[in-house]
């Protein structure tokens, strides 16, 4: 185990809050505005961590443990994600399922805390979140399975660093379909337009935001931080797929991969600027479409 394996998660933990900043900056440019500071989320986290939290009389211990539990699940998932050819700190055969499971665990805690409040908004948000997750998870698992099949390995640390340009040339359609499916999953799982609108103040249209309306202080900081880290992890996954470059030195590869993650952020920003949000019933079609693409990718590679 080299120094590099420790650096990969550290880089993620430190740079994750910058990714939403990049997306916001791209969106601001498209809208002709100057936009908030790139490091706004760092300021927000610092502010929130120094605050006290307010709890409703109706909530139980679930409400105040859920944010830290959810954050822990995402932090654990971050230990599974390799970046720029460097394997992750934790690797075991089949950890692609563990990765999806940890993301699901984090969501489970958020939903539980939201239901604990008894608020009608949070109930609606939870039901929508679970509905979307139930449709996004098959797409995630199927596309990961397709890529795993291509490399014939079952650990993220073995699949992603092994992926090369040659694989892309060999099975372009399958990998392109899997990547597209993963991109849609990224948008859906991280409450981006066209699935959710992260900037809205309208409770009735919110999905993810509605679930965390009652959280404040350090709890909200954990929630915001885990959301940015989740985005970073999905971004790393896509960056590893889209930029399978092996420059020779691990540090150079890592730098390229980090640029790749921010590149994914820019793409997300462009997509968000060019699209309006979908009507709720249409999200179903989008996500089923993603699952279908992933399934077709898998079938193409099973031949």
């Amino acid at each position, binding site marked *: 185990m080299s120094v590099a394996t420790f650096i990969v998660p550290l880089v993620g933990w430190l740079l994750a809050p910058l990714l939403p900043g990049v997306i916001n900056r791209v*969106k601001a440019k*498209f*809208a*002709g*505005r100057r936009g908030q500071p790139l490091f706004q989320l760092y300021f927000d986290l610092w502010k929130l961590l120094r605050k006290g939290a307010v709890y409703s009389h109706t909530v139980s211990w679930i409400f105040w443990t859920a944010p830290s539990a959810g954050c822990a699940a995402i932090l654990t998932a971050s230990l599974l994600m390799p970046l720029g050819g460097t394997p992750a700190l934790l690797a075991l055969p089949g950890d692609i399922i563990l990765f999806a499971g940890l993301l699901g665990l984090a969501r489970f805690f958020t939903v539980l805390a939201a239901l604990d409040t008894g608020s*009608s*908004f949070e*109930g*609606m948000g939870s*039901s*929508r979140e679970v509905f979307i997750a139930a449709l996004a998870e098959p797409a995630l698992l199927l596309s990961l399975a397709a890529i795993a099949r291509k490399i014939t390995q079952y650990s993220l640390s073995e699949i992603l660093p092994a992926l090369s340009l040659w694989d892309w040339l060999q099975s372009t359609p399958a990998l392109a379909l899997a990547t597209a499916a993963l991109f849609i999953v990224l948008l859906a799982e991280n409450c981006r*337009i*066209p699935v959710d*609108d992260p*900037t*809205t*103040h*309208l*409770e*009735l*249209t919110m999905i993810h935001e509605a679930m965390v309306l009652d959280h404040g202080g350090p709890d909200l900081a954990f929630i915001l931080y885990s959301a940015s880290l989740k985005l970073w992890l999905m971004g790393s996954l896509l960056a590893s797929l889209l930029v399978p470059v092996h420059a020779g030195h691990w540090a150079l590869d890592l730098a390229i991969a980090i640029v790749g993650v921010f590149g994914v952020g820019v793409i997300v920003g462009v997509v*968000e*600027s*060019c*699209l*309006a*949000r*979908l*009507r*709720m*019933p*249409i999200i179903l079609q989008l996500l089923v479409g993603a699952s279908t693409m992933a399934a077709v990718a898998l079938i193409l590679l099973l031949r």
Partner: protein
Amino acid sequence: MSSVTSTCVLRNSQAAAIASAPVLGESEFRAFVTEGAREGGRLVAFFGYPQSEGGIRLLAAIARGGESSLEVATTRVDRVYPSLTTDCVQAHGFEREIAEQWGVEPQGHPWLKPVRFHESYRPGQDVFKRQQPPQAGLADFYRIEGEEVHEVAVGPVHAGIIEPGHFRFQCHGEEVLHLEISLGYQHRGVERALVGGPNARSLHLMETLAGDTTIGHTTAYCQAVESLTGVRVPARAQAIRAIALELERLANHTGDLGALAGDAGYLPTMSYCGRIRGDFLNITALLCGNRFGRNLICPGGVARELDKNRLAQLETRLAQASQDVASAVNLLWESSSVRARFENTGTLSKETCLQLGLVGPVARACGVERDARREFPFGLYRFFQIPVSTFHHGNVFGRAFVRWLEIQRSINFIQQQLKALPGGAIRAEMKPMAPGQFCLSLVEGWRGEICHVGLTGDQGQWMLYKVKDPSFHNWMGLAVALRGQQISDFPLCNKSFNLSYCGHDL
């Protein structure tokens, strides 16, 4: 029909003696309202006022767009009368208002609830038997029972910086079965404060009636005062009033299109339109020094002269803003995801629209050619007509598109008027109002038809002043448009109506 022959027929802002309004019997009055509303007419005003001999006089006005006529009739009631709403849905809100204000119960009204939650004007006569003073929002709400039915309450405190209102949804999953809107949180007692006037405060009350419709309401008020005094407004003042009214329409429609884009998550148009709305407001400020058009319109004409220098500036700024708004709004129609979001959302049928007596862009989006500028021309619109913009889908897209059509036509209209601005005085000398008269004043504000009714007492003072903002009709339209829709579509639908809370609550 016998009842029609015994009504008093007026034109927009034409004064008549209160005594000339016929007093009908209960059944005649009922026939007048229900048949009038059925035969292509529309209930524009229906209210009560106290009589010296005791009891309440109800006055109803039916507007007939084709003939530009307003038919007025009255009847006497005391504590109860059979509700008209059962035969004429348009009377729904008016009857609730009468019940709350004067303690007269319309028996058989399908959903008799307070409108603004204030004390009865006749002390001790509260139809709803409420604890005094009444509290806003404290009333029964329509409920749907069932295993999977859930209730969502939104407001009166909202997430955005908007006015207070309470919305109660009955939902089955994501589908809205019923929406009930409860307002009254902004009730200030404007109508009561005007009684005994006009005085120094009257004009200010009109300017602040609904902050975004300053020009519309002030024009309606001034028209009423002018017709009751018999003063003729100079042509130049009429032109400046019309320009200001269209500028108000431009600013608000532009803001609405931007907000609609924002609710659909489409940021470019939202940001641009937010800025361009400011440009239109600044052009209004060029006219009178206030972005919302305060201190511009006054009884007798306008208070500010439009000199050559500012006229030229106005023209160039308007040309620039019109270019900007075209490019920003066209982004909306070019983006298929925005169109998909707007279409099939919040649809109102033409029948429902006519039944509820909806007004403004909402009605025009349903394909109803209803525009006071053409149907009941006032001021400059008697000489220069603006084509009525309609659409046929009655959904969010229709309401957005009608706004865009109106933006273009308003810009053309202003540009024409600026080129041929009449000369002469801007203000006529005012006289006291004639006693014992009344007048209906209609103005097409940006939200729709504004109707003011003023009745003067024996000293020529206001004995009663009734204000009806277009929102008074259209709130019900919003509630109906949401039926069978997704609850997540509510903000978008709401924005496509963009109704006034304080204009409704008065």
